[in-house]
C-alpha cells in the first residue's frame, strides 16, 4: 500500500508538471498539431471520480484545432456504484444516446469518443453498443479487467473503488472479464494510449494485445501508442493531445500508425524516442512452441 501511495503521489506530481508544460507550450502545440478542416464531433468521457472539468484542457485544445469537442454531460464519473455492470452500461447507453445523436445531427458526422481511464472503458463499451453512431474510439490509460490475470493496478485506487462500488474488480468484470475488442468487431478504429510510468493502472492492462493488433484489418484498425505521461495528467499532457488530434484525423480507409517524428525537428528525435517509447511487443511468433516450452 505504501508503494502504491508513493506511486499515486508521483503520478500527481507528474500531472502537475504536465499541466505546467501544457500551459507554457500551448501556442507551440497549437501550431504543431494537425488541424481539422471539416466537421469532426468528439465526446470526451472523464475518468473515475473526475468530472467533465478534468477534460477541459483537452476539449479546449481540440476546439482550437477545429474539432467540435464536448464533454459527456453526465457530471462526475462515479462508476457503477454497486450496480451490475451490464445494467449500468445499459443505463449509460440510454443516457448517452441522445447526447451522441444530438452532436452527430449538429455536425452531420459520426461522433468520436475519447475516454480517460474508466471513461475509456465506457467509451469502449458504449461504442460496442452504439457502433453505427460512433466513428472511432481513443482510450487514454483505459484498463481491461481480466477475470484471473493479475495486474499491478494501484491498490489504493482499487480499495477506494471497492469501497465506493461495493464490488471487487473480479466481481465487477464477471467471468468473461472486460477485455479489448476483437480484431474484427466492432468495425471501427480503436486506439489505446498508455504510459510506462502510469501510477494508477498497469500498462499491460491498457495495451491492446499484439495478436489482436496483428489480426486487425484496415477496416477496423487497432493501435497502441506508448507515451511518457502520468495517468492523471493524460488529459492535460501536450504529448497525449498531439497523439489524440493526430489519431482523430487519421483516415479510416488509409490507416497508418502514429508517427510522432513527423511533428518534431530531426535534432529532437532522440528525445522524441524517449517521450514516445516503442510499443511493447506481446506477440510471440510461435506461441504454441512457447506453450510447449512452458509445459513439462
Amino acid at each position: 500500500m505504501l508503494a502504491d501511495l508513493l506511486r499515486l503521489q508521483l503520478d500527481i506530481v507528474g500531472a502537475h508538471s504536465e499541466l505546467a508544460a501544457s500551459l507554457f507550450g500551448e501556442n507551440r502545440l497549437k501550431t504543431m498539431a494537425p488541424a481539422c478542416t471539416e466537421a469532426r464531433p468528439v465526446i470526451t468521457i472523464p475518468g473515475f471520480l473526475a468530472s467533465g472539468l478534468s477534460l477541459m484542457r483537452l476539449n479546449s485544445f481540440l476546439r482550437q484545432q477545429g474539432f467540435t469537442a464536448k464533454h459527456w454531460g453526465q457530471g462526475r464519473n462515479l462508476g457503477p456504484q454497486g450496480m451490475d455492470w451490464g445494467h449500468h452500461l445499459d443505463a449509460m447507453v440510454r443516457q448517452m444516446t441522445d447526447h451522441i445523436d444530438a452532436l452527430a445531427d449538429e455536425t452531420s458526422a459520426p461522433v468520436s469518443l475519447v475516454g480517460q481511464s474508466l471513461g475509456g472503458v465506457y467509451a469502449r463499451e458504449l461504442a460496442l453498443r452504439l457502433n453505427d453512431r460512433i466513428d472511432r474510439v481513443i482510450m487514454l490509460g483505459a484498463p481491461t479487467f481480466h477475470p484471473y490475470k493479475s495486474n499491478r493496478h494501484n491498490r489504493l485506487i482499487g480499495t477506494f473503488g471497492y469501497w465506493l462500488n461495493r464490488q471487487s474488480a473480479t466481481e465487477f468484470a464477471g467471468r468473461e472479464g472486460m477485455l479489448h475488442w476483437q480484431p474484427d468487431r466492432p468495425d471501427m478504429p480503436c486506439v489505446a494510449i498508455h504510459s510506462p510510468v502510469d501510477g494508477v493502472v498497469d500498462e499491460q492492462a491498457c495495451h491492446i494485445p499484439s495478436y489482436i493488433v496483428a489480426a486487425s484489418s484496415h477496416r477496423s484498425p487497432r493501435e497502441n501508442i506508448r507515451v511518457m505521461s502520468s495517468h492523471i495528467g493524460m488529459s492535460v499532457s501536450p504529448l497525449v493531445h498531439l497523439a489524440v488530434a493526430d489519431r482523430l484525423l487519421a483516415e479510416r480507409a488509409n490507416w497508418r500508425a502514429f508517427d510522432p517524428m513527423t511533428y518534431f525537428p530531426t535534432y529532437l528525435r532522440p528525445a522524441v524516442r524517449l517521450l514516445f517509447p516503442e510499443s511493447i511487443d506481446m506477440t510471440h511468433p510461435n506461441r504454441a512452441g512457447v506453450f510447449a516450452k512452458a509445459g513439462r
Partner: protein
Amino acid sequence: MSEQSTSHRSAPSEQLELPEVLHCLVREHQHFSALLDQIEKKTEQVSPMTLSDYYLLRDIVGYMHDYPIQVHHPTETLVFERLQQRRPKLSKTIRAMFADHEEVAAETEHLLFLLEQIIQKAGREECRAVRTACNDFARHQRQHMQIENLQLFPVALKALSDEDWESLVVEYRAADDPLFGPLVARRHRVLFEYLLGATEQVVAKTENAGWLSLERFSLAFGTLQQGRDAYFELVRVLVEQLGEETSAAAQQVLKPPGVLALMTLPARFATGISKSMLRGSGDLLKISTSTARMFLGDVLSISRRKG
C-alpha cells in the same frame, strides 16, 4: 476474433520427423501438460483459492473437456484401432485406453460440475473437494498421457506403414485447436490471454530479459508481490479462523450444552487455537521460503546472465 472454421490442424514442424497425425497428438499432449501445470500451480498454492482461481480452473477444465472429446480422443481412437489391427497383442492395452478415455471424460465432467458449484457458492469443504478433485484429475491425465506417449505412440510409429498414416490423415477429424491453433475461439480468449501472460514470463525468464532489463526487474518484483499477497491472504484467513473459534466458544459459554462440555471448553479452545496457530505458522513459513527461493531464482538467473 471470430469463431474458427474447421480446417486442417496446423502443419507439423520440420524439426520432428513424425507422421502428421502423431505429431499433432504429441503436440496436443504438450499443450495439455502446460495446462495441467497451471492447474497444479493453483492447487499447490498455500493461500486459499479465490474466485479468480476458480474461473481459471473452470476455463482450463472446460477446454480439456471439450477439445479432447471432440477432436483429440477420436483421432487417438483412429490411430489405436489401426494399431490394434497391426499388433493384435496390444488389444488389451488399447481397450484399457479406450475405457480410460471414457473415465477421463466422466472425471472431467464431474470436476466441471464441482467448479461451477463452487463459483456459485464457496465453502471450506467445497474448496477442499475441488483441490482434491483437481489433483486427481491432473494425476490421472498425466498417467494417461504417459502411457500413450511412452507405450503406444512409439509402437504405432514402428508398426504403422506410411500408407496407414496417410489414410489416417484423410480419416481424422480435421479441426483447428480453438485455444492453441492459429485462431483463438471467442470462448477461449480469456484463457488465451492469461496463458499469453504466463508465457511471457517464461520467455522473459529464458530468452528476452537481459541484465537490469525492465522485464527482469518486474519479474523479480512480481515474485515478491505475489509472496506478500499470499502472506497477507493467509494472515486474513487465520484471523478469520481465530474469530470463528472464539465466537463458537463464546456461544458455548452463553448456552452451555452440558456441564462436562463447559468444563472441558477452555482446554478444547486452547487446543483449537494452538492447532490453527501452528498450522498457520507452518504455512507462513512455507510462503516465506518459497517466495525467497523464487526471488533468489530470479536474482541468480540475473547473475548468470550478467556473467
